[in-house]
């Protein structure tokens, strides 16, 4: 698997995939995409990088343990749901604000943060599984 070309291309490919995954995640509310797909794409990116260059560089590159990322995702999702309680509406009710940043109206919502939570949960879990299995491959 570790051909020279693959090893050379893999970091760039992975970077591209992660950028693409974020794009898929953010447009998910109005176009095909979303947290689940984005997360899977990003997890694949980690898996590819891991196969090409070994697991250690991947773990260094993402800095956090993937399971921590997954846990962060679940917590973020839960917190995004809890916010609604402070406004006096039931758990998980979507809240929207439209701040104007640099002259562009940006729609922000608890729903978006929830989707980001899903993204992190998926990328963390699946990435963690893939990396763990690849790691055993090297022993």
């Amino acid at each position, binding site marked *: 698997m570790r051909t020279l070309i693959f090893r050379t291309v893999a970091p760039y490919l992975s970077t591209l995939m992660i950028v693409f995954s974020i794009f898929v995640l953010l447009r998910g509310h109005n176009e095909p995409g979303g947290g689940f797909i984005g997360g899977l794409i990003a997890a694949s990116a980690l898996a590819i990088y891991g196969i090409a260059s070994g697991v250690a560089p991947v773990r260094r590159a993402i800095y956090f343990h993937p399971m921590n990322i997954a846990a962060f995702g679940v917590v973020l999702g839960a917190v995004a749901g809890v916010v609604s309680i402070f406004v006096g509406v039931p758990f998980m009710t979507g809240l929207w604000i439209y701040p104007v940043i640099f002259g562009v109206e940006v729609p922000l919502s608890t729903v978006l943060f929830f989707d980001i939570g899903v993204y992190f949960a998926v990328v963390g879990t*699946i990435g963690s599984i893939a990396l763990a299995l690849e790691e055993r491959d090297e022993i």
Partner: protein
Amino acid sequence: MEPVLAIFVGLLFTTAIYLMTSRHTIRILMGVAVLGNGVNLLIFTSGRLTRDVPPIIPAGLDAPLIPIANPLPQALILTAIVISFSFFAFLLVLGFRAYQELATDDSRDMRLAEPADDPLPPLGY
């Protein structure tokens, strides 16, 4: 179109069941993967089929004008795919670990919890 998919779903289930009745963990695993696809397609087809029109509301409208694909089964299946994948991975690792511990992938040789020559329980009090 539904009848054709019904037959395909039946074939997915047939394959899945045949693989899962094997004694070998690898085949059982493959069976589980195929079973997931069968179930997902079953739900998908039950929600009726609409060609080419994804459940996305065109820009500038509040509701779709033309008939669109049924979004409800899609939402169910989307999470099902991800969850069945994580459980597939779990089963895979379980089978792998069982192989490492017991040096076999034959489920009939895995008798740790239910030994074949389990003695009669004590008859006293």
